[in-house]
């Protein structure tokens, strides 16, 4: 221990910390100082509008009907799709499986039992997110916590709202199942899709990664051809014939932004918040708001050129914007976010197409 002798008349040395300590004890100030630099740079070295590079691998699992591994920065998720068969009993009314709206959404639970304090039975597509895999220090092991439940519900709603899977490919018909039959009386069963998302490593923005993994896994799924067997009176599958699950034409993708408040000062031109594309968990913890844009983009991965993306105006359609809280985000900011979402969606489409084309 060194002893300090107070010096008379001179200024005491200011209290300073090393960068890593500063990062730990005052995250808000640490982030703000980064954004006040020019050009503004995030602690992870990215610019505010830059998203992390991601990788996609599909169908690497042997027991799933379709699977995808998505890794974006230090966030890694695995999505496995498994089809199971739901046999319609003679007295049943299959109409409740015929539309997305009959299955409960987060706002109005058709079954009503969740409102009554219990859980409800779901629709044909059953998404679940598992975070208690030791993916991060923050989330305890055991039954799903708040975040996992919220995510499962959000993804469930996204699937329903976007009508991602066309229900045609989930129906199982009587006999040979020729395409002309549409009468519901001929429907003997349905494919029920279990969409399980396991988070292997968590470093922020799990919604985007999980949604992309779900879309990619569904896109690469192959279900065995199932048909009703008259003599056995049950549904059998053919081990040699597989068919893809048909999804909607233009695939929707989500892009998430985090809103970080800035102190009001003249240095930053009066701006009071900064929008970060694809936040990591350090930034998420400090964010006052999360903005998620669900959009579809017209992008031809064969002819399109990703390097010229910002200049080529991508035709994009916003399907949903979710922003919780009341922080002011102006129209121009929303517009620039939409552009960023479009370019990210284009990148998603490109790597998905590349993955589909590569022979396994």
């Amino acid at each position: 221990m060194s002893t300090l002798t107070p010096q008379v008349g001179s200024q005491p040395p200011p209290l300073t910390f090393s960068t890593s300590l500063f990062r730990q004890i005052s995250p808000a100030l640490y982030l703000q100082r980064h954004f006040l630099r020019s050009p503004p740079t995030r602690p992870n070295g990215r610019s505010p509008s830059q998203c992390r590079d991601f990788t996609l691998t599909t169908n690497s699992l042997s027991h799933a009907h379709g699977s995808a591994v998505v890794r974006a920065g230090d966030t890694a998720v695995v999505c496995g799709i498994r089809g199971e068969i739901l046999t319609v009993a003679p007295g049943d009314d299959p109409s409740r499986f015929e539309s997305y709206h009959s299955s409960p959404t987060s706002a109005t639970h058709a079954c009503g039992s969740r409102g009554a304090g219990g859980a409800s039975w779901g629709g044909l597509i059953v998404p679940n997110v598992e975070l208690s895999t030791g993916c991060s220090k923050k989330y305890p092991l055991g039954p799903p916590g708040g975040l996992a439940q919220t995510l499962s519900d959000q993804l469930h709603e996204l699937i329903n709202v976007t009508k991602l899977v066309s229900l045609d490919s989930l129906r199982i018909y009587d006999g040979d199942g020729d395409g002309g039959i549409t009468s519901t009386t001929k429907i003997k069963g349905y494919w029920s899709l279990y969409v399980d998302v396991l988070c292997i490593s968590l470093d922020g923005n799990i919604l985007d990664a999980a949604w992309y993994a779900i879309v990619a896994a569904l896109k690469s799924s192959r279900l065995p051809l199932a048909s009703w067997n008259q003599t056995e009176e049950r549904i059998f599958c053919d081990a040699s014939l597989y068919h893809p699950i048909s999804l909607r034409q233009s695939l929707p993708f989500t892009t998430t932004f985090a809103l970080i408040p800035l102190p009001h000062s003249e240095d930053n031109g009066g701006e009071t918040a900064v929008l970060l594309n694809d936040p990591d968990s350090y930034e998420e913890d400090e964010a006052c708001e999360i903005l998620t844009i669900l959009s579809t983009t017209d992008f031809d991965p064969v002819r399109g050129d990703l390097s010229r993306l910002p200049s080529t105006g991508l035709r994009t359609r916003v399907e949903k914007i979710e922003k919780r809280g009341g922080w002011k985000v102006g129209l121009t900011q929303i517009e620039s976010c939409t552009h960023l979402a479009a370019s990210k969606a284009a990148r998603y489409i490109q790597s998905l197409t590349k993955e589909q084309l590569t022979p396994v």
Partner: protein
Amino acid sequence: MAAKAPDRRRNNPPSHGTTPPVFLSSSSSGAVKPKQSSRPPDEIRKIFLRTGLISSVTGSSFLEIAPLKLSVSVLGPRPLPRTSSTPFAAQAILTTEVKFAPFASTVRRGYIRDSSERDLGSRLYQALVGAIRRELYPKSRIEVVVTILDSEDEGDDVNTVYIEEGKATVETKFWDAGRSERALGVVLAGCITAASAALADAGIEMFDLVSGGVATSFVDEANSKGKGKGHLVSNKLYVRDPAIAPPGGKTPLATCVLGYMAARDEISELWISGKVGTKNGTTEMDELVDEAIAAARSARGVLNEAAKERVQFIVDKTGTAPPSKGETTDVEMSG
């Protein structure tokens, strides 16, 4: 799956209940033959092991052995919660958890851990608990979480119905008594190897790295069908790291899984299931255990390389040897 009470915390399937797809095969002869591996019996499958892939936990590893894929993360050592009910712990409390992903096997598993997963967890605990220097971490806990993403099992055979003379018969082909033990044994051995790699990555002090090994003894099918006992033991085939399908014309006798510390020549966990007898004074169990140890030694080589690679990576990145990882490297050199 029969409709039980719905899970309050998860999205649930339709209330009608769903069944896994059942395949129809016109004759049992057309069934899928088990794939014969070209691997010699004393060679284990190639192991892919990488540590430190998960940045937000203390230590992690990813292991891949042919179809088996698993990810391990180590949380801690972190302090025990300060509640009045927490007893004083002079040594670190180790918890191990093994969970199959719902899509990791042919029959979909639920999210609630079943008995085989709990069993694997407790065996993994046994294998690791003796190797960790727990007295160095008082009043803290270390959690080892294993997530199995893919595993080798029966494939679609279990769900195949064969039609013979117009009548459907459910046959479980290639099913034999030691099958599930063999499948679980390979998984457990992988868990042990990957978990000690993750513990080393976390910089937790250990006496030695534990590697897992598995071996199965087989006899000719003819011998197993109630002939003299002398024949039974005559030509035995030991297979290290056995595949799910037995070698042609052979019937499995016993499977041995162990956790082995090579530098200390100690077995930390031993699990033998099946029939082991005595031959000319030397026990067959010894032979089986020796085979499993040989498999564990081969896995140890991979473990050493992974740990070395990781330490090198850290040294290259920071320019200095990490203080906490020094111990594990030292141990490694003697092993």
